[in-house]
């Protein structure tokens, strides 16, 4: 098999014209068989999770394409997966309130089958048939599990009192379980979300005289502090907005540095006594560059959830807004991201439930390391976990033990539902106090290449059994 594959690749390379791409990505053979959940399940069903008389359907789905371009639940490779990889399946969906008025509650029920019996609450999104995805024309229904029946979900959502009338069709629902399996179901591609004639299920909203589909407009911006010192003096500024029906309620600004390398998002607070007036107040961090900082964007949202964005690149009000001169000592400007000097895992082998420690030695030239976060991934990518490292000082009652701000570590373990085999630290991101960051990738940066741990199955023997601290 392998030899014939090598031979076919060699034949292709030999036969291809010189100008052609030398290498073609590997392809998964047609006809892999999956279970109803769309997943090849090498370790069999989690039979202990099934009720009496409940069975998983027979395999019947075939996969025509390589795993990476299919739905997450179809991510398989030519290799057999281990662990249990079933996703929650939406099997029923019914809207209980076919006609509502603006401001009314919409109710629905859904049935979700999960091998793990622990599907998380989820949200179904509805769009107005006529106005699609405009703010007040988008509607969310929140589903919570029933106390008596964990597979039954009760959904509730409220139509905006400013929503346009007409038909609201279900668009999609993304459903997760607490072992991290996630699947998105779209109305046009998943039968339970459709009517018998395969049109998306919907509810009607009565005509609404208070409909609001227009977002607020930005009328003016005032900057009260024309000059400040970085790290100490706050900048205060005000935006003035108008709105035709529901009124502006939220605003967010983004400021940008002279070199356009740093952005700062500022939540502006509505001054309720003066409709349309929003106040912003923030300080340029002490490690950021000085010079003329300017407003890059303001977002305004009204009470109907219509949002408008105003950019300095093409909006006259923002383009003409005053700049703020920021005084800064050039020696304090930190533009260089921290770096990783060394990284390792505490073990090359582990069993399900056993902790593995990832440790990184890091450095930063000026502001200091603020965060280190990694990502470990299972052999075929069907499972992955974020690992957030910390640099906590543990007092061991030893005079020689002092804080070590350059040593960062964290532990992780896999659950029994996850894939066994060689897990890889595929990514490690590091940021400093000035928000300079760099992400290291397995295979791209040598320092992060080949950092692995082999998670053994229940029946696998360790290559090297641990003896350290072991009691006999």
């Amino acid at each position, binding site marked *: 098999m392998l030899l014939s594959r090598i031979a076919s690749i060699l034949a292709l390379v030999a036969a291809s014209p010189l100008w052609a791409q030398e290498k073609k990505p590997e392809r998964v053979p047609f006809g892999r068989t999956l279970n109803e959940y769309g997943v090849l399940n090498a370790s069999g069903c989690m039979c202990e999770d099934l009720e009496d008389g409940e069975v998983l359907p027979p395999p019947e789905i075939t996969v025509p394409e390589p795993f990476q371009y299919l739905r997450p639940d179809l991510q398989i490779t030519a290799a057999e997966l281990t662990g249990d990889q079933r996703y929650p399946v939406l099997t029923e969906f019914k809207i209980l309130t076919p006609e509502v008025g603006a401001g009314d509650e919409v109710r629905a029920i859904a049935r979700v089958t999960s091998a793990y019996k622990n599907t998380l609450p989820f949200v179904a999104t509805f769009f107005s048939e006529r106005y699609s995805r405009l703010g007040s024309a988008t509607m969310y229904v929140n589903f919570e599990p029933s106390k008596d029946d964990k597979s039954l979900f009760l959904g509730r959502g409220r139509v905006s009192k400013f929503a346009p009338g007409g038909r609201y069709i279900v668009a999609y629902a993304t459903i997760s379980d607490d072992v991290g399996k996630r699947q998105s179901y779209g109305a046009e591609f998943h039968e339970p979300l459709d009517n018998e004639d*395969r049109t998306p299920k919907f509810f009607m909203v009565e005509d609404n005289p208070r409909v609001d589909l227009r977002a607020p407009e930005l009328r003016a911006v005032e900057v009260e502090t024309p000059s400040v010192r970085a790290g100490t003096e706050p900048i205060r500024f005000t935006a003035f907005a108008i709105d035709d029906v529901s009124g502006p309620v939220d605003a967010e600004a983004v400021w940008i540095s002279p070199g356009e390398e740093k952005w700062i998002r500022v939540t502006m607070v509505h001054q309720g006594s003066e409709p349309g007036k929003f106040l912003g107040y923030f300080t340029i961090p002490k490690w950021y560059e000085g010079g003329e900082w300017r407003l890059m964007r303001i977002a305004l949202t009204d009470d109907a959830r219509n949002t408008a964005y105003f950019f300095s690149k093409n909006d006259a009000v923002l383009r003409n807004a005053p700049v703020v001169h920021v005084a800064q000592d050039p020696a304090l400007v930190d533009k260089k991201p921290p770096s990783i000097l060394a990284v390792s895992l505490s073990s090359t082998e582990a069993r399900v439930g056993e902790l593995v420690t990832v440790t990184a030695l890091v450095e930063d030239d000026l502001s200091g390391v603020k965060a280190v976060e990694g*990502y470990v991934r299972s052999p075929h990518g069907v499972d*992955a976990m974020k690992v957030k490292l910390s640099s906590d000082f543990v007092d061991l009652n030893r005079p020689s033990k002092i804080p070590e701000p350059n040593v960062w570590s964290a532990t992780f373990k896999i659950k029994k539902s996850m894939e066994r085999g060689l897990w890889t630290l595929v990514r490690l991101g590091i940021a400093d106090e000035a928000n300079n960051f760099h992400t290291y990738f397995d295979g791209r940066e040598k320092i992060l290449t080949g950092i692995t741990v082999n998670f053994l199955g229940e029946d696998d023997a360790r290559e090297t059994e641990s003896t350290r601290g072991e009691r006999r």
Partner: protein
Amino acid sequence: MGAAAVWPRKATAERGTLRMGEMLLPEAPDFKTKHLIFVIYGNGARKKDVVDNPEYAPYQTKLIREGTLFTEDYGDTANLHGYMYTEMFTGIDPPTQRPLFPTLNEYVRKKTGAKASDFWVLQGASYYRGWTFDVKHFSRHADYGIGVGATSLTMNKLFYEENAANPRDLFDLLIEKGLGHTPKERKDIMEWIADVMARRSYIPPSTREPLIDRELQYGDAQALHMVPQILKVFKPKIVTVQVLALDDAHADFGYWDYNTDYWEYIKHVKATDELIGKMWAEVQADPYLRDTTALILRPECGRDDEINIYGQLGHSPGNYYAHYVWTMAIGPDFKKNHVVKEKVQRRDLVPTITYLMSGQSAEHSVGHVRTQMFKDEHRLPPYVLPFTADMKPGIDWEGPQEERRRAEAFKRFARSTVGYGD
């Protein structure tokens, strides 16, 4: 179509003119364009990484001189590719992924009486990151639909070394029935597929920035590489390419099969830029196509202003470079070395292409014809920016069910054999 369509909204246009929203255009203008390559530079690209960046995109930045460049091309939304793609195809912000209203191919095919092999939609893969891309080549609209749709080819289902199926089976399996191919068209397409397979002409040319060794990137390259071949053999009216792999800039947001980031996005920008350059050069080298073929290129959205802390570049509402992209238009009817800084709308492309290729209106679209790009000799009126929250036509769900049932039956058949990618 049962419910009230909005266009034309005002008084009936005068004889010999077309009303499109607020604009009045001459009917059946004398355009020289016979063929159009429409590249949806898809799944998100920033103008600062492409047309504003000669280092990353030397081919496209040079092409700017050959045509018209819109620099402030706005999209109301900057996320959910399945919906934005459908907006690109229909000229309406849709509530569904599958087009409810006629696509640009349907408009042009119906209005010109052209045949199925005059319209092609090419994509590297059918399904990627939660979105289905090979369902965009016809709508469920009662007056249009699959009968005036386009021939859709998915590269990784068709063109690969191990594919030993015969062209007849591939045609039956991969191209929807109901598109109206005549027996001669079927024969021509099957022979062409066999020829492509035999000559391996689906293998894209090498690029200075090598393609990332994954099937989606390869599929994009194949789709771009197939365009001149299809143009030369079938002389179609429109070939649409759906580029997909640029979204690898943030591809493991919950899709953790591999690690991707801004760095890989830039690599794909560089590789596809060269492939676009080579594609256009091949068209220009053909004495017939050179004078009759146009190229329109636009991403369906841009990408964020800032790279996130994981080194990824998303596409989120509220980012200038996510909402504002560019359109490049080159062809015998378009102005050269012309830069338009006026704000235009994503929904404009359907009425613009329909007008270019048929001289008629896209009556259900709510975009406007971008008259700025046409040469002065056509004497078109000034462009009017369409209003964002404009009325849309009502949807008649009951009308087009027959087409829908046929499509579903086809997919059931496809699933029962080798599967289907949605």
